[in-house]
């Protein structure tokens, strides 16, 4: 560390660093990492939104634990909110009301906590989309993807356990639904429900148990997994978008100290600030309006928080199938939407990187991100999945939509049911075709330059559109496409007549590979690209004489810009004169 200054802060800093280094060897780490380069793109900040909103959740949540009482024992409310005065309610609800009305800043912190939980899950979702659509989950980042899927599930659990804690009419109804779902599980359902709730519903045990999960188990797991997640990003280095100077073997961006620290740190304060602003300006979860939870009361328009909406929608749209086999009841109408569909979704998410790698035979390390158009099937699958999720999500609010737009929810539900089945495949096909179209456009740009929109009339009368060569940025990005080829079809027996024992699997793999890759547009070779760009420069150079013309201080005799060519007539009049 150079110390060419007498600034006392730097002297103390240097001394501290030495003190710590003598005990931990930290200067080695600092030396290597203070200049660590991070690529800069706004979409890389989505994960940061999740991280920072989680920090806000922790800070505000800790404050709330000092006031909240997770008890279902009934008390009579004696606080300042008049419409509930003298009403019997659980201590959990009463303490939540006290936080909102008696503790100064309590409502602000409670609302910040709830808003940042909503934002946390949203940021995770958008971050996951970015990672998926750019192929950032490919080798070497598959483990990080799995950690991310686990974090998604934990975030949902954290949110659900959290908003059930105030024991209000809205969230308590959600707990009642959970009890119904647990009960529907074959074989063990009744026992599962009774164990979780400590007996019948609602009992007096479930809120304290949710509390333990919400403040200890789940945040502990989330913190541990976030640490693992960030450590992997640190050691593997962040992936980057293709561009000038960027290769698969480098990172181009800004150093940790000072630029990245300032930007990331600044972004933390911006996220924190915006959450504080909306915590103060916009109401969220007004539990005093819903009233305390009673198992025989319910409000119209009962919905869970947005990130659970898709599960509620699945429950609403599911047909009412139930079977009784040998006297035992299997409630498909509950199991499929609440256990099977989320199970398939999360399993699919977790397995996708491995499935895609197996299907494409791609074992290379990828540090450059892929443009979504260059992986049409992956992009199509992603959009189809989002469509499926989105329709379920809309279904979760079907009665609110019906009230708002004056329609019948019966009609809406049927429409959504049909759309749920036909929507995703249609979305897949449309997305794939759009991607392929964009790939064709890219190929044209590489081979012919881009259409400048300027039309040139050549001396012999031909009209051409001037193509310009791509600028270096675009060229770097478009030519980053990787060519991937369909895996070869297996042979049943080889040249010596020996049967292939893996024929079935190999055949499946070939089919899958074909599904993923067969329609991809071939990337032109580097030589072809160079030739194409040169050709485009030529075409652009055709315009050069025009500019020369303009520079000459001559009146080109008003020919409308037509270039002269030896032997060519100059005007119509001249031509007529010539003939005569």
């Amino acid at each position: 560390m150079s110390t060419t200054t007498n600034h006392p802060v730097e002297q103390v800093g240097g001394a501290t660093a030495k003190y710590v280094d003598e005990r931990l060897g930290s200067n080695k780490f600092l030396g290597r990492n203070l200049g660590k380069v991070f690529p800069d793109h706004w979409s890389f900040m989505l994960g940061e939104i999740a991280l920072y909103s989680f920090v806000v959740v922790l800070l505000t949540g800790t404050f709330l634990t000092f006031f909240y009482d997770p008890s279902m024992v009934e008390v009579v409310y004696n606080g300042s909110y008049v419409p509930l005065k003298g009403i019997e309610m659980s201590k959990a609800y009463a303490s939540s009301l006290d936080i909102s009305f008696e503790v100064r800043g309590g409502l602000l912190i409670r609302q910040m906590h709830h808003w940042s939980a909503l934002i946390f899950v949203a940021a995770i979702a958008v971050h996951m989309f970015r990672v998926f659509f750019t192929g950032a989950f490919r080798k070497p980042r598959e483990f990080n993807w799995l950690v991310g899927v686990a974090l998604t599930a934990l975030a949902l659990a954290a949110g659900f356990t959290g908003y059930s804690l105030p024991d209000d009419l809205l969230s308590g109804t959600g707990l009642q639904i959970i009890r119904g779902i647990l009960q529907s599980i074959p074989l063990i359902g009744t026992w599962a429900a009774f164990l979780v709730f400590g007996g019948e519903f609602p009992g007096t045990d479930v809120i304290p148990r949710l509390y333990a999960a919400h403040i200890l188990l789940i945040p502990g797991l989330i913190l541990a997994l976030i640490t693992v997640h960030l450590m992997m990003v640190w050691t593997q280095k962040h992936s980057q978008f293709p561009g000038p100077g960027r290769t698969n073997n480098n990172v181009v961006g800004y150093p940790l100290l000072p630029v990245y620290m300032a930007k990331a740190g600044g972004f933390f304060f911006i996220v924190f600030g915006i959450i504080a602003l909306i915590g103060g300006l916009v109401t969220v979860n007004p539990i005093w309006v819903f009233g305390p939870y009673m198992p025989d009361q319910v409000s119209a328009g009962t919905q869970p928080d947005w990130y659970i909406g898709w599960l509620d929608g699945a429950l609403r749209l599911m047909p009412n199938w139930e079977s009784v086999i040998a006297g035992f009841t299997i409630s498909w109408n509950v199991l499929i939407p609440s256990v099977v569909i989320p199970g398939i979704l999360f399993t699919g998410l977790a397995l996708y990187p491995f499935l895609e790698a197996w299907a494409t035979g791609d074992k290379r390390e990828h540090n450059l991100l892929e443009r979504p158009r260059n992986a049409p099937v992956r992009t199509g699958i992603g959009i189809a999945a989002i469509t499926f999720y989105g329709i379920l999500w809309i279904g979760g609010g079907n009665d609110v939509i019906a009230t708002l737009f004056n329609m019948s929810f019966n009609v809406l539900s049927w429409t959504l049911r049909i759309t749920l089945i036909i929507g995703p495949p249609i979305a897949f096909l449309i997305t794939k075709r759009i991607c392929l179209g964009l790939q064709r456009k890219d190929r044209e740009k590489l081979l012919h330059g881009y259409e400048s929109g300027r039309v040139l009339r050549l001396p012999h009368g031909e009209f051409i559109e001037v193509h310009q060569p791509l600028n270096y940025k675009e060229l770097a990005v478009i030519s980053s496409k990787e060519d991937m080829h369909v895996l070869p079809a297996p042979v049943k027996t080889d040249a010596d007549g020996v049967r292939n024992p893996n024929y079935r699997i190999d055949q499946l793999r070939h089919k899958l590979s074909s599904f993923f890759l067969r329609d991809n547009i071939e990337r032109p070779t580097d030589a072809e690209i160079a030739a194409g760009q040169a050709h485009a420069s030529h075409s652009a150079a055709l315009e050069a004489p025009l500019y020369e013309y303009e520079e000459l201080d001559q009146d080109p005799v008003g020919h409308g810009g037509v270039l002269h060519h030896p032997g060519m007539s100059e005007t119509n009049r001249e031509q007529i004169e010539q003939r005569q």
Partner: protein
Amino acid sequence: MKFLSARRRNPFVAALLLVGALGAVGVTFSVVSNIQPAQASLGTQTQVEEGKKLYLEGCSSCHGIDAQGATNGPTLLGVGAAAVHFQVSTGRMPLAAPGAQATAKEAIYNEEEVAAMSAYISSLAPGPAIPTSEELDYESADIAAGGVLFRINCAQCHQAAGQGGALTQGKYAPNLMQSTPQEIYEAMVSGPQSMPVFSNDTLPIKDKQAVTAYIMALQEAPSPGGLSLGRIGPVAEGLFMWVVVFAAFIGAAVWIGIKAR
């Protein structure tokens, strides 16, 4: 005949014709508009007669000549003055068009006309009466008790904050934020359309006053946490978060990434 045609170009004739035409229109209008009687205070007998006239004109085509019901409208025998006042003064009746639900709109009849029609219908068969001002007085009612009753009897259709809710086949329970105490009482006691009937035996007047007090408190309630987003719950909150807040975050992220000039 010759007298008139000889003077047809007389300038005074034009003026006379104009005055005559205006007068004719005016007289016709006042005759026609006087068909609806404006006075209602000549005793109940006249009121019932007036009500019957109004009924026959505006209601009998759907509800039958003797209010016994017809294909398009249920019987009005026994619905009581309260039902008539509720339906007509909120403009729900007459129906604008046959549909799933009668919507509240601009009332066609004025208060006196409504009173007359109510008197007529209640003269045919006994039913819930229009509430007196003592019955409507909710000032001394217990708001908290009203809240409990509201959540037991009303929230499942009208939503916990009275914002309204969806019923089957496009019907709905309306938003209560503009309802007057009289409308609330009359609706409870007459059970309009899909709404069940909460008679004074099942829900005593004291309890009705408490419910009304609670609804009035909901109408006047401040929003302690800030902008209320309609008080319809997580759907609005999620939408706001995605559309406004997340857009702000993306905007900030893009701003951070853009190179400074």
